[in-house]
C-alpha cells in the first residue's frame, strides 16, 4: 500500500463522519482540526472506522499521530503494510 492509498482511505472515512465538509482542498501538512469542523468524538470515529474496516488499532497514546493527513499517512503506512 502506498501513501496515496492511505490518504484516500482517511479522506473516505472523514467524508463519512463529516459529510458536510468540503474535502477537495485539504492541506496534508495542516492539522485537520484547523481545516475542518472536527471534534474529539470525530477522531474517535476515525479510530473506530480504522478498526472496523481495516483491523487497524490506534492506541490512545498514538491519537496525536492522527492530527494531520501527513502525520496519519506516516503513522498508518507501516501498519497497513503489516496487515
Amino acid at each position, binding site marked *: 500500500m502506498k501513501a496515496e492509498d492511505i490518504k484516500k482511505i482517511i479522506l473516505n472515512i472523514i467524508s463519512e*463522519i*463529516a*459529510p*458536510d465538509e468540503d474535502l477537495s482542498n485539504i492541506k496534508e501538512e495542516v492539522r485537520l482540526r484547523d481545516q475542518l*469542523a472536527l471534534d474529539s*468524538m470525530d477522531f*474517535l*470515529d476515525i479510530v*473506530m472506522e480504522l*478498526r*472496523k474496516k481495516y483491523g487497524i488499532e490506534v492506541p490512545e497514546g498514538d491519537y496525536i499521530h492522527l492530527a494531520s493527513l501527513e502525520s496519519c499517512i506516516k503513522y498508518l503506512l507501516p501498519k497497513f503494510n503489516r496487515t
Partner: protein
Amino acid sequence: MDLNDRIVITGIGLTAPNGNNLSEYRKNLLDGKANIQRIETRYMGPVLAGVCNFDPLRYQTKKEIRNGTRAGSIGIYCAHEAIRDSGVDWQGIDRSRVGIYEGITEHGNVETENEIYNISQFNYDTKYWSHHHNPRTVANNPAGEVSINLKITGPHYTIGAACAAGNAGLIHGVQMLRLKEIDFALAGGVSESIHTFGIFAAFRSQGALGEHNEPNKASRPFDTARNGIVVSEGGCIYTLERLEDALKRKAKIYGEIVGYGLNSDATDTVLPNPERQAECIQLALKKAGLHPKDIHLVNTHATSTNQGDIQECEALRQIFKDCPHTYFNNTKSFIGHAMGAAGALELAGNLPSFEDATIHATINVDNLDPACELNNLVINKPLKVNNVDTILNNSFGMLGINSVVIIKKYIY
C-alpha cells in the same frame, strides 16, 4: 385568574405520518386520509407502522443527523417549526429563559438495538461498541439535541410517562411558566419507537399488535374487528407563553390550557383502570372550573386494543352521560399510535376545530363495538357543529399513568 397564570398556545410544530405541518395534517384528517405503511423490521420482517417523511436536513447538518437520534431530529424539526409559527422574535429572545420539555414513551431502545446488532457483526466484541451510544441514549437526548441545535440555554429534559407523555410534556410546560421558572416553553412529545423491533415484538407477544391486509385500515378503534396497536413515529412541539406576554406581542393564540389532570392507576402494568381515568378527567375539569357539559369535543386515547377501548368508553360514559353537546373522536385511526408524541399530536389535529367548528371523524369503524358506544361518537365522516369552544384530550399509558388536558378557545 391573573394574566400571568393563564398559559396559551402560540405556535405548533409537528410531524405526523400524514402531515408535516398543521394545515396539511388537518386537511388529511378532514379528508379521511390515513397513512400507515408496511415496513421491514430487524428480526421480525414486515410490520405495520406510521412513518414520517419530514426533511431533517431543513434544520440539521448531515453530521448532526448521523451522530444524533431520530427522536432528536423529530424534536428539532418540530421545535423550529413551532418557533417559526409562533412569530416570536427568536433572535431577540432570552434563551436562558426558554425551557424544553419533551414527553417520551421510551428512549434509547433504538440505539441500543443498533449497537447490539453492530457488535454481532464482530463476534460480540465490545470494542466495536460506538462511543456515540451514551449521548444518544441518555434520557434527555431528544430535548438536549433541540437545546444544542437552537442554542437554548434554559432547562431541557424529557418527561417519561409512557403513552401519556405528550400531554405530560405540555402540562409540565404550563407548570414551569406558572412558577416563573421560564418565560417561553417548547413543550410536547416525540417518538422514534418504530425504529426498534422490540416494541413491535413485545406488542405481538402481548397479542396487541395491530394487523390488517390494508395498512390504512389497521388502526380501527371502537370497531369490532380491531386487533391491536399500530405503532407510529411522530412529534409535536408547542410554544407556550403566559397570556400577558402573548398579548403584549400580539401573538396568534391557538387556545388556552385551562385545565389538566395527571394521576396513576396503581393497579396493573398494562391494563388500564377506567375508574382512575375518570378521576383524572374530573381532576382536569375541576382545575378548569368546568362541568362535563361544558366540553364540546373529547379526543379519545383509544388505541385499537380490545380491552383498552372498552375501558376508556366506560370512563367517558360515567362522566359525559348527560352531555348532549359533547362529541367524541379518535385521531389514532388515521396515524396509529405515536406513543410519546400521541397526546400532543392528537390535540394539534383537533385545535383547528375552534376555527372551523368541524370535528374530524374516527375512521375505519365498519361495525361499532356495542361496548364502545358513546353518544355523539363521530365516525367515518367529519361533522360540522355550531361551535367548538372547549377540547378535552385524553392520553393514558402503561404502568397506569393518566393525563388529560383541557383547552379553551381564546376569545380576543
